[in-house]
């Protein structure tokens, strides 16, 4: 029998598995899909905007955790544990060969160009992205490719210029990336793993760049050989090279996912996708097993402890219907979400305070066990991490990855 069964292979699930296996436990991860990493920017956002002041970007996130509500997962953990989780993440990714960096001024948010040219607050970013920080005043050359549909260099450059950052745009022939017209960003990244392609692209970059500039490219600079591709391009072009994320699928997110998964598997943890949990069995408040759907018949997974890392609405961990009912799909845990559709949304899509339906979730105690209305744990051997937690809107406050890491890495914290 295994010690921990983690449900969900997003960042919070992978971090929980890592925390458990590091403490010497036997761990398995099962998941339906592969989580939000495939959609995001690949950076680690810890806290970009406070719920009540979405206009002003948070400069030093760890110092502002105290401004969050009492039921916020960061508040429950406390700042030291959050910091500790992030430190562990940095050590882990460094060890696995995909290092993440923070701002030069320690503790500050990086401000990185978004694919629309806004500046996005990220606490940690992969090496290839952190070089795009706005705190560096080297002018930017934003390089796009003709007819690449998921990246618009002129839009980025114009918006950066508006915000006082020197930037200009050029477009290179699409053929430098691929001979296939309908390749997606992941396929394009794989093509750049080919050294000949990297060399040809480097020649064009050398032509285009002016002295003193740094070069921003869409985030598809290699997949398996990413670090080499970036180094080679920078060396040949004679200028720093950085990545700006594109529309999904997210190459930086997939690199992180692949890296963490490989790291876990090297530690003996299996990560199995395509397994939706459809049933559970508990006796006297203790979960015995859960069953996942497979093409044949349901498969039972028993464990000492269970970790729910299914990610709320975004991850598919919560379902809802037209009557306004919203429920947690595996254990039917109590949710704080309003049970009436008329209270779910605000009139503006970009409402500064976010939408109430996305702020609800599973209430937990200090040990991150789900609790009922009286505060009693629902099950003795269940923990909840990541996007399923109540008390926050991780997208609105830009804390999605930070929450996943902090709650996952602290799974075993007493």
């Amino acid at each position, binding site marked *: 029998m295994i010690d921990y069964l983690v449900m969900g292979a997003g960042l919070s699930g992978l971090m929980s598995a890592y925390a458990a296996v590091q403490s010497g436990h036997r761990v398995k991860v099962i998941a339906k899909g592969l989580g939000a990493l495939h959609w995001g920017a690949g950076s680690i956002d810890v806290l970009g905007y406070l719920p009540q002041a*979405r206009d002003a970007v948070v400069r030093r996130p760890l110092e502002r955790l105290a401004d969050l509500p009492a039921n916020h997962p960061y508040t429950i953990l406390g700042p030291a544990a959050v910091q500790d989780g992030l430190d562990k993440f940095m050590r882990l990714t460094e060890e696995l060969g995909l290092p993440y960096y923070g701002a030069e001024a320690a503790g500050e948010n990086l401000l990185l160009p978004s694919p*629309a040219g806004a*500046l996005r607050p990220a606490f940690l970013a992969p090496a290839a992205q952190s070089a795009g920080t706005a705190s560096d005043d080297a002018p930017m050359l934003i390089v796009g490719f003709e007819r690449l549909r998921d990246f618009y260099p002129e839009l980025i450059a114009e918006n950066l210029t508006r915000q006082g950052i020197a930037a200009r745009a050029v477009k290179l022939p699409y053929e430098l990336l691929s001979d296939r017209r309908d390749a997606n960003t992941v396929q394009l990244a794989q093509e750049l793993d080919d050294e000949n392609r990297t060399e040809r692209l480097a020649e064009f970059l050398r032509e285009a760049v002016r002295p003193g500039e740094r070069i921003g490219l869409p985030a598809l600079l290699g997949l398996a050989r990413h670090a080499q591709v970036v180094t080679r391009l920078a060396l040949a072009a004679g200028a720093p090279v950085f990545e700006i994320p594109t529309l*999904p699928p997210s190459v930086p997110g997939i690199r992180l996912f692949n890296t963490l998964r490989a790291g876990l598997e090297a530690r003996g943890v299996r990560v199995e996708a395509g397994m939706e949990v459809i049933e559970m069995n508990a006796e006297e408040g203790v979960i015995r097993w859960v069953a996942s759907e497979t093409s044949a018949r349901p498969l039972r997974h028993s464990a000492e402890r269970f970790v729910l890392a299914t990610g709320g609405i975004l991850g598919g961990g919560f379902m809802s219907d037209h009557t306004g009912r919203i429920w947690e799909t595996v254990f039917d845990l109590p949710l704080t979400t309003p049970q009436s*559709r008329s209270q779910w*949304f605000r009139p503006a899509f970009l409402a500064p305070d976010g939408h109430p339906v996305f702020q609800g979730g599973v209430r937990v105690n200090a040990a991150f066990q789900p609790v009922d209305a009286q505060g009693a744990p629902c099950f003795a051997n269940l923990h909840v991490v990541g996007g399923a937690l109540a008390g926050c809107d991780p997208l609105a406050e830009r804390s999605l990855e930070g929450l996943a890491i902090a709650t996952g890495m602290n799974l075993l914290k007493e």
Partner: protein
Amino acid sequence: MKRINTEILVIGGGATGTGIAWDAALRGFAVALVERRDLTHGTTGRYHGLLHSGGRYVVKDPQSAVECIQENRTLRHTHAHCIEETGGLFVVTPEDEGDFPDLFVQGCAETGVPCNEISVAAALRREPLLNPRISRVFEVPDGSADSFLATHATAQAARQAGARILTYHAVTGLLVTGGDGDKRVVGARVMDAVSGEEIHIHAAMVINATGAWAGRITGMVGIPISVIPGKGTMVAMNHRLVNTVINRCKMPADGDIIVPVHTVAVIGTTDERVADPENLRIEPWEVQLMLDEGEKLVPGISRARVVRAWAGVRPLYQEDYTGDSRDATRKFALLDHQRGHGVAGLITITGGKWTTFRLMAEKTVDLAVDYLGERQPCRTASTQVPGAEQGHYWLGHRLHEIEEEHLQGELICECELVTRTMIENAAKRNPTVTLDDIRRDVRLGMGPCQGGFCTYRAVGILHELARQAEGAGPTEEETKEGTERDAAWEVAYLQSPRHNLSADERPARDEAGLQPNLLLRDFLQERWKGVTPILWGRQLKQERLDELIYLNLMNADHLPQTGEKSPLTDFYLYDATPNEQTEAPA
């Protein structure tokens, strides 16, 4: 202040007004049309999509049925490419008992609506998802019609005949001479919503074709006509669950028709009196009612994914009008305000159906001719609009062309199969103030992901075009025509990937000074407005993914220029929160 002189000024760029501009221009009148937003912004762009056979009206309103079948045949010729020949079925469900089916058959015979009873088994072979418990089925020549394309094509035909089409131009007042007893409307004060400029348009005849807004225009000269807006809600399902129009065979009521429209199936409608034709909130019970009623025709439909809900307004005209009525039927009102209210130079046309817009336009211009004098006869019934030579629309046409031309890599909107050059050409050939205008041209963002990917891409593309235009300077044509946004209306081939393999040579028209961040925000909000009434289940998850893209990845809520507004920003920002009511009012 600018001044324009014309013979006929048409107010309203819906099907009716555009049809009038076309008809009058073909007869040889000088015509200008003003629409305060884009063409089809009103009811025409929010209707159900049904080209009526007349079957729906054979029992309740035989005169309407006669008009529908006549116009149904005419539009299949004049607007062939805007129509899909789906055919229609009237089905008797277990709830629809009584003698209605027999009255229906008799009514079809009397009004000339072709009707053919087929076996239930044959109906189920054709539409396998249909309720197997139906007892009788009648086949009629209903169709599915694209009102965006049809109205834009009609506008292009009108322009070719010499009409001026001014979009984003709102009438703010009427120009009047004389006093009580001999009042005459001689034109209108018009506000250019993009530049803010005021224009006076002088005309011998002003035709008010503003549909549910008609009372607001007549109110400007003190004519109290009572037009009560009646709201109708529709919901679009993710899939084309049926390929034939499905009607309940009973007295017309709520939610009794399912229309296959392009890639989706639309259930409609409700009918609720509202105070304001503009701020249409969709209540949860309305969506529920549509799903419940749809369930009776296609069991299981309510478990399918809903992609969007919207509402249109019917103008309910109150018959307290005393003038010499030239109404062709009770269903549309043609008001001669000289005879009715002693105010010369103004005609109002309101009500009716999309299917009969051409006929309404013909009757309206006939009335104008009484005052302006005879010109050439009406020719709209036999004149094809540009693009009609392509023949009828069929669902697979885009996919077929994309595959044949290997355009998979050019797709900007994967759901609706819109290529980059289709967007570029739409922006070059038509006035574009918002992304919503492009949506109407090429169906951008209308599929299951509701703009998640294509909003950003389309903004990026339009921004690139605008940058090129800045470099290119004004064309000869533009210099000649000044800054008017009526220069181009070329829609005939916009919907066809194959006809847009390369982008036009001419630069894009960037008269408003394109603001990419505003385009982005406006369109995201427009989509939000359409999805909030139906967000639950998988569609709610989809929306959260869109948030991930536009908040976390793009940081779209912190782009520069947050204070900027388009003529439509406020419209999109209406209160979308459904209220507490969960039941239909008794």
